[in-house]
Structures are given as C-alpha cells and as structure tokens.
C-alpha cells in the first residue's frame, strides 16, 4: 500500500502578532553560513536557525511533526539544504499557501511532501489551526483534518509528477523507473 496520508503535530510559523509569516527565505530557513555542509544528517540543527522566534525549532521538533508556513515559503536561494534540514529532523511535511518555485521543486525531487493550502491564513487567524494541534493530511484526495479541533480543511492534492516521484522515493529512483 502506497503512503497517501500523514498525521502529526503541527507548528504554525507565526510572528509575534500571531500572523503566519510570509516570504520566509532560504537564509532564514538554512543560513548561508552553513552552506558548506554536504551531509544531510548534519543539517537538522540549522533548520529555521535565522527565523525570528523560531530559532529553537530543531530542539522542539519531533519526528513526524508538520510545519505550517505563510505564502512564498522558501523564497531566495536554490539551496537544497533548506529542504534537507527538515528531512534530517524527520519533519513529516510542510503546508503553505504557496512555495517559491525552486523550493517546491527541490522538495518534490527529494520526495519530501510539500502541499499547498489556500485556507491557511484564515484557519490560523481564527485559531482553527494552532501549534500543537494533531492534524491528518491526505496527499491524494486533498483532505485535511484537525484531529484536536475536529475540523476539516482542504488543500491541493499532489500533482501527478509530484505523486510519482514521492512514491518512488526521489527523482533518482523515479528516473530509474523509466530507464534514466
């Protein structure tokens, strides 16, 4: 049976006023001072290391946790480390209203689930999604369920290519599956 859903505790990346932080760029996710790191296993401690209010994220995160971010998440550089640092922490997936195009591709190609959800700003504003909630997300149907608050929401299901790469594991395995 192929994985099609994920359940985990969420971290809603909000600022001091409680608003979802938009345009979080890759230097806030994984600062350029650590770009020399090439081992995925070493990248976890730097996740969100330059994002005000979230610098202790690597200590707080548990395997399977879900990150909820504002629009244009992953703006800026093409660095794969900005995706890999979450994989290293075994974060389950990232939800955002939108991602930068390069960031989105990098995640898709690594087989790391990133999903777009247009309702996040509103859900977060009215506290229907709060840090600590237990949430279940179905990648293929696009159904989201907040277990803690017994509320549903919807998101964009994975596209065909995203789903295929995800199920094969990553772009390399996907390429091999048709002889590349």
């Amino acid at each position: 049976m192929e994985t099609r859903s994920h359940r985990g505790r969420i971290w809603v990346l909000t600022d001091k006023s409680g608003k979802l932080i938009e345009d979080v760029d890759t230097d806030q996710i994984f600062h350029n001072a650590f770009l020399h790191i090439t081992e995925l296993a070493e990248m976890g401690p730097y996740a969100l290391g330059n994002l005000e209010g979230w610098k202790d994220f690597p200590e707080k995160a548990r395997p399977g946790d879900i990150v909820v971010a504002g629009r244009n998440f992953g703006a800026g550089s093409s660095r794969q480390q900005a995706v890999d640092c979450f994989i290293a922490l075994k974060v389950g997936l990232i939800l955002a209203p939108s991602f930068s195009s390069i960031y989105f591709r990098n995640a898709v190609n690594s087989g790391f689930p990133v999903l777009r959800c247009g309702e996040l700003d509103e859900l977060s504003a009215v506290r229907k999604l709060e840090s600590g909630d237990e949430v279940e997300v179905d990648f293929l149907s696009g159904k989201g369920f907040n277990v803690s608050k017994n509320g549903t929401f919807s998101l964009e299901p994975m596209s065909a290519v995203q789903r295929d790469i995800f199920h094969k594991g990553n772009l390399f395995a996907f390429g091999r599956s048709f002889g590349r």
Partner: protein
Amino acid sequence: MGKTVIEKIIQSHTADEVAPGKIVWMDLDIRSARDFGGPNVVKNYEREYGGMPLADPAKTFFTFDLCAPACSLKYADNQQVCRDFARKNGVEVYDVDSGIGTHVLMEEGLARTNGTVVGTDSHMNILGALGAFGQGMGDVDITFAFRTGRTWFEVPESVKVIVKGAYRKPTSAKDLTLYLLKILGTKKIALRSAEFTGPSVAALSLAGRLTLCSMVTEMAGISGFLPEFGPDARKEIEICSKRPFSPFSSDGDASYAETIEVDVQDLPPQVATPPSPTHVRPVAELSGTKIDSGFIGSCTNGRFEDFAEAARLLKGRRVKKGVMLKIVPATRRVYEELLAKGVLQTLFEAGAIIVNSGCGGCAEGHVGLTGKGEVQISTGNRNFPGKQGKGQTYLAGPAVVAASCILGHIAGPEDL
C-alpha cells in the same frame, strides 16, 4: 494558439506539447553547479550514478563564485571535490579566478539566446536578459541533469508587464527594477514568467537587462524576458555568443494570464529598505540615513557600466572617512576592462576597496558582510534579515551607492 517567449523556448527543447500548467520533459543545453551546491551534486552523483557517464561533459560546467578564492577550509575542500570530479569526467571548471557563473556562461557564449540553462544559482533566470531560459535548481535536480541532460518542468503562465513612460539619468536600470519590485511585490508575477515591454525597457543595455532580469527572482517569478532588444544590447549579445542574434518573440495571439501597466515617467532614484527588496522608497525619503559601508557588485550590478557610473561620481572626490566602499566586479573580464580603462584607478584613488571578481556578500564567503549595528548600502539583490550578517542592508543602484559613500549617508547623485 500563439506562444509566449518562454513557451517557445521550452517547445524548442521538448517533444511534449507545451501549454501553461503542463508538465514537460525539457532538454537542458547547459547544466552547471557552483562551489555551493556543487559538492552536494558530486556526492549525489557518486551515490546514485557512481561509475556511470555524464550525459555530455561538454555541456556540463562548474563555476566557482561564492567563496573565491576559498577563505575557509570547508570551501577549499568542497571546491577540490568538484575539481577532482570534473577532471575525472572531462568537465570544464570556471575556477575561483573567473567570476559569477551566470555572467561567465554568458561571456563565454555557452548560455545562448533561446537556450535552456540550469545551475545551483537562484539568479540563473538572469539569463532572460539575452533571451535564454535560465533556472536555478537544487542539487538533486542538477545531479539528475548532469546524468540525463533533461528535467521535468511545469510550463508557467506568462504575464505581460507594460512599462510606460521614460526616466532620465542618473535614474538607472536598478531604480527601474526596484520600482517594479515595489509595484509587483512578491505576488503579481509569482510562479509566472514575465515579459517586460515598453520604451524604457527596450532602451536598456545588456547590463541594465541583467539588472532587471536578475531581480525577477525577488519578485518570486520563474523568469523574466525583455522581448524588445535595443541596438546596444543586440551588439553586446552577439559579441558574447559569436553568432547572429535571432531571439524568439511572442506571437500576436499568445495568451497572458494578466497584463500589468507600470508608469515610470520621471522616476527618481529608488532605495529598498530592510528587510525586503520590495520595501522600496524614493531616495529623497531616506536621505540622511547614516551608513557605515557601501557595496558595488553582485550578479545584479557587477558589469563595467555599473562601476563606470560610480567612478563618474567618485572622480576627484573621496569616500567619506569611516565609510568602507567595497568593489567586486562580476567577472575577470569585467575586471580587465575596468583596469584597461582606468576605472579601477579612479575608484582606488577615491578610497574604495577593490577585490577579485565573485558574488560578493550574498553569502558568507566573499566581500560585503555586515556586523551588528552596521548600515550598508548595496547594489546587491537581497536584504533579507540576517542574510549578509546582523547589520541592515539597503539596496540601490551604483550611483546612489557612490553618492552615499561620498556623503556618509544615503543620498542621490543629485545631492552631491
């Protein structure tokens, strides 16, 4: 149905049908990696494809521009990892003496009009300046491209940005670009390909076109094209590519998701204030803000004419005591021309610090970092919190940076 510029470029590199939203397999003319991303590509390649040949070594390149020459042991190691892999596989390295990879690929005639180019640089779309589709990608993508010469790509929607009106010097391409960032923000062209038209855009030199196209990344766009080419830009591109110039243009019945008009009549010089390249105000509103340092360079403003413009203002004047002005030519060729034409002499005599070509302070590894409390005015493209250090970075064109360094506070060239 007619096609836009990006749709034509992609269509000429795929057998799949091209339309916005479709996922196609696209051939990549040039695949490259830098000293950042490059060692990760090598590591991925050896793990996934160890012993298997590259799709085409002659289309594969390393360009070292981030930490050039290496100023940390980690980067020294990482660069050597790439060099060893390159030697083993017959791949050319544009080493630490060369300059910014995107600019080098253009100057060497490798990145070509109507071509497709990928690399581990999010400003790869700067190559839209010459009508090429450049795209920054992470190390997984680039590893796959090294091995296969192709990648999947979702064809973006196109949006037309009509730039109306004209401005006069000393307002520059950077001021136009910053103003467009103010109007377009990170939403209007997000995940789309933009075509900028209008007399002010058509009049841009190659350097000016590079400035505008580079910052499409900060607008969250996929790529930017300037389908009208002035005679200067045309000539400059032909010199680089050593071949006749015949760029794709969009069809009359091409489809655009949106058309946006922006008026730049009599636009004054602009400055982006921290913490975002989209927080843009006219320089006059910031005049008097004390600065500690200035930076001229980066892929956005590292061409000959950028430094010549600064030198024009600095000639016979001095950088204010206590202010650092850092000069980083984009490439060795730019450096050579600056040297030959006496521009570096002028900048040196004015008190500037001149270093070898490279990316500058966009990452820790070259010149242009800020300490806590430091205020820097830079011709770079990003001023996100903490990016260049704990200081505050303002973004502007070369003339504004030069004037500010002379006066010790943010100022326009007309304040001199």
